[in-house]
């Protein structure tokens, strides 16, 4: 269908008015999509006005505009006012999507607004859905992909503009049994319908922009994928931002930097005051400190991760070397593979119970740091094993051949060629594993956890706990055998203890604030383990490739 004149217009780089409008429509859809995401996370509240108008009205107006606009684009193409290359139909997938959406709207309108009882309420739904399906299948692509989407946007916009979804609005479908009733509120319905409509209209206008046909489908898919990726990133940042905004103010209460403001520490026999004072991280929780903190839990989590990594990584990498380099591929390796995969998906509480019933009796009979370390180490083993094995198998055989041809023994080859080349992959496995175990609550609960809100004096001191004696085993560490807290466990304990009242007498924040700050610190600790891992991987990759 593309003619010489069409191609000339493309080459000349002039943007026609049609393309300008379609591009603008894509931009407005993207803006609406962003607004929808923002209002879902309450960055934009529905009750506050935007530019003097109620937010719902603004959203409704925009929906009506893009709905009308996209229908106009489709109409212009159908009336052949502009040069496009539409197919004969938008296809079954689009028809299915439009049909089911319109069926849902029609059914809701039929049963709730018109009050048709029984299955008769579905009749409007069937009519609308069937109509949308037929329109999409039977009409040319320029009409079939724009009109159902545009009408849907106009309908949603009209509902918004009519003020139906005011702040007091809610809808409980009567057909649900009353004891587990479902209620929809505007805070969910409005962003949800905005997201849906903007996705559909964005897709349709992207198709229109590229003139429908194969190029249109290509661009339409691109817009959908980009908006989807935007939503995922928004969820991620929304989540982190939410925790930070809730927790950071409390976590930084009383944070000061200056010479000698911090607590006194002794290192290498010299006592000095730290230049930083961060009460929330440097205090325990007790009536004797002004600002309660979570030092014991932070230290517990750090030692827990260090212990688990020291225990699991050498074992797992050793096993991976055996599996990848020495064992013959066969029944044995596949059994090991199934077993490690199964172990990795084993629920963490099962590991916890194993630790509680197997490890604790062997380490003094009470919950202890070392039992927690080993339990989490067992959890870490399978993932590090799987990823290390994959990383070693991915090392080119050319390296092994070259090394063997130089007369270098197998073990030396593994040590000086295979392992360094596999290191980035191994580190990736450790990062993923640490990310999981650092936030584990259940195993800690049953193997390690101490009091709910430990005081600063209960902070575990693993380094100071080492004692050297002249009789076997020559070195003991009391600290490893003590119960300790950890950040995820402490958060859990705070929540179960109740978040209603104030923390302690004359504490500057409530129990809820304290819990949010705890969550913020947990998130920061886990993310910094990630950051360390990513930096390590980057370092080794650079060393290999440059």
């Amino acid at each position, binding site marked *: 269908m593309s003619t010489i004149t069409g191609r000339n217009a493309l080459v000349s780089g002039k943007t026609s008015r049609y393309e300008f409008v379609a591009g603008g429509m894509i931009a407005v859809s993207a803006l609406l999509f962003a607004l929808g995401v923002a209002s879902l996370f309450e960055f934009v509240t529905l009750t506050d006005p935007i530019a003097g108008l109620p937010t719902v009205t603004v959203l409704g107006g925009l929906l009506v505009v893009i709905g009308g606009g996209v229908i106009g684009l489709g109409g212009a193409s159908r009336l052949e006012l502009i040069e496009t290359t539409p197919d004969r139909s938008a296809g079954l997938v689009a028809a299915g999507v439009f049909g089911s959406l319109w069926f849902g709207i029609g059914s809701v309108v039929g049963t709730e607004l018109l009050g048709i009882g029984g299955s008769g309420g579905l009749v409007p739904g069937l009519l609308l859905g069937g109509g949308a399906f037929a329109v999409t299948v039977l009409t040319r692509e320029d009409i079939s992909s724009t009109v159902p989407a545009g009408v849907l946007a106009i309908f949603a916009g009209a509902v918004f503009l009519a003020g139906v979804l005011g702040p007091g609005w809610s809808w409980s479908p009567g057909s649900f049994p009353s004891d587990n009733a479902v209620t929809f509120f505007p805070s969910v319905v409005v962003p949800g319908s905005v997201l849906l409509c903007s996705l559909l209209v964005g897709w349709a206008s992207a198709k229109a922009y590229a003139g429908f046909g194969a190029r249109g489908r290509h661009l339409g898919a691109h817009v959908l994928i980009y908006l989807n990726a935007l939503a995922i990133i928004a969820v991620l940042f929304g989540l982190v931002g939410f925790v930070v905004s809730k927790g950071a103010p409390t976590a930084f209460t009383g944070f000061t930097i200056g010479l000698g403001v911090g607590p006194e520490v002794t290192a290498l026999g010299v006592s000095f005051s730290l230049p930083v004072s961060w009460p929330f991280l440097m205090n325990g929780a007790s009536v004797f400190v002004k600002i309660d903190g979570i030092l014991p839990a932070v230290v517990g989590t750090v030692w827990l991760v260090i212990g688990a990594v020291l225990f699991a990584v050498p074992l797992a990498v050793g096993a991976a070397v055996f599996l990848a380099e020495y064992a*013959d*591929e066969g029944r044995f390796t596949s059994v090991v593979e199934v077993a490690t995969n199964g172990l990795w998906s084993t629920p963490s509480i099962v590991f916890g119970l194993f630790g509680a019933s197997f490890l604790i009796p062997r380490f003094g009979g009470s919950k202890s740091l070392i039992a927690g370390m080993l339990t989490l180490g067992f959890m870490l083993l399978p993932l590090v094993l799987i990823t290390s094995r994959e990383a070693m198998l991915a090392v080119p055989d050319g*390296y092994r051949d070259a090394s063997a041809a130089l*007369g*270098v023994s197998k073990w030396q080859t593994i040590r000086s060629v295979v392992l360094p080349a596999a290191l980035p992959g191994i580190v990736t496995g450790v990062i993923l594993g640490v990310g999981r175990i650092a936030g584990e609550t259940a195993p800690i609960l049953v193997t390690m956890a101490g009091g709910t809100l430990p005081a600063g004096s209960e902070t575990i001191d693993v380094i100071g706990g080492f004692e050297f004696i002249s009789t076997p085993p020559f070195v003991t560490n009391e600290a490893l055998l003590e119960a300790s807290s950890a950040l995820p466990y402490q958060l859990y304990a705070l929540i179960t203890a109740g978040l209603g009242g104030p923390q302690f007498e004359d504490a500057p924040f409530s129990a809820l604030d304290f819990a949010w700050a705890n969550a913020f610190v947990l998130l920061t600790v886990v993310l910094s383990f990630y950051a360390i891992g990513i930096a390590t991987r980057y370092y080794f990759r650079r060393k290999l490739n440059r």
Partner: protein
Amino acid sequence: MSESSTTDEKTETESTSIADPTPRQTAGTEPSTSGASTTSGESEEELHEEWTDYHFEGETHVSVENLDVHYGDDHAIKDVSMDIPSESVTALIGPSGCGKSTFLRCLNRMNDRIKAAEVDGSIEVDDVEIYQDGVDLVELRKHVGMVFQQPNPFPKSIRDNVSYGPRKHGDIRTGLIDRLLGRDESDAERELVETALKRAALYEEVEDRLDDNALGLSGGQQQRLCIARALATDPEILLMDEPASALDPIATSRIEDLIDDLSEEYTVVIVTHNMQQAARISDQTAVFLTGGRLVEYDDTEKIFEEPESQRVEDYISGKFG
């Protein structure tokens, strides 16, 4: 497991086609499978012993007697005997799947790394049988270096690549303990790296960046680095498995010049698919034809100008293979 996976490795065109039991029709060439002794377009003829009976002046460096190699049921090399003269270039040519790479890998016992491979017969290097009990593979492979089809430098610095062999063999000590005890041999390492790179005609190009990663070099430079790496262990024999087939014409001609220079000091055995290359650089040529048989072995000029075997003449003139 890495052992068994070497059977289907890409650098080993020979073993790939052998390990593959289904005959494939690729550009008129049918890789040898058990039973098939000719390829399409190839006529049948009787082999004559005198065709492979090559007499040369000078010393024999490698002597192969009645070599047979089996990969499981596959008879990859059938009763090959040939003597390789020292300080010369010997080319092994033949169609895909004729066993020339397998033959080459027997000379430094690289076939030991393939579990399915079974080698019978005798190979003597400097009059010492290398297929007997108690052969030190480390010494053998130091003595018989090898360069592969794909340039395969380690992801390390250029310097570390070259000094890898001697360091791992303990010939050069640069470890922490040695540094602490004052036995550090960094000077010796520097000298060795320089000598090896100069012999491989690479030194001038990389002089200033010996500590850069070897993967940053071009393909031709990487292959010369691999040659330098093989030379660093001070071998006397250098095996080359299609060393230029993955390189562009300019890099190829540099490698060819290098091989020419190396043949003054080393015994070079080179497998190639490229007959012009064999004609250009080799002193004598051995032609393997389908079925893992050595058909003719003589001076390169003789092979390319008046071969005894009709099949060799057909192969050289491009009628098959």
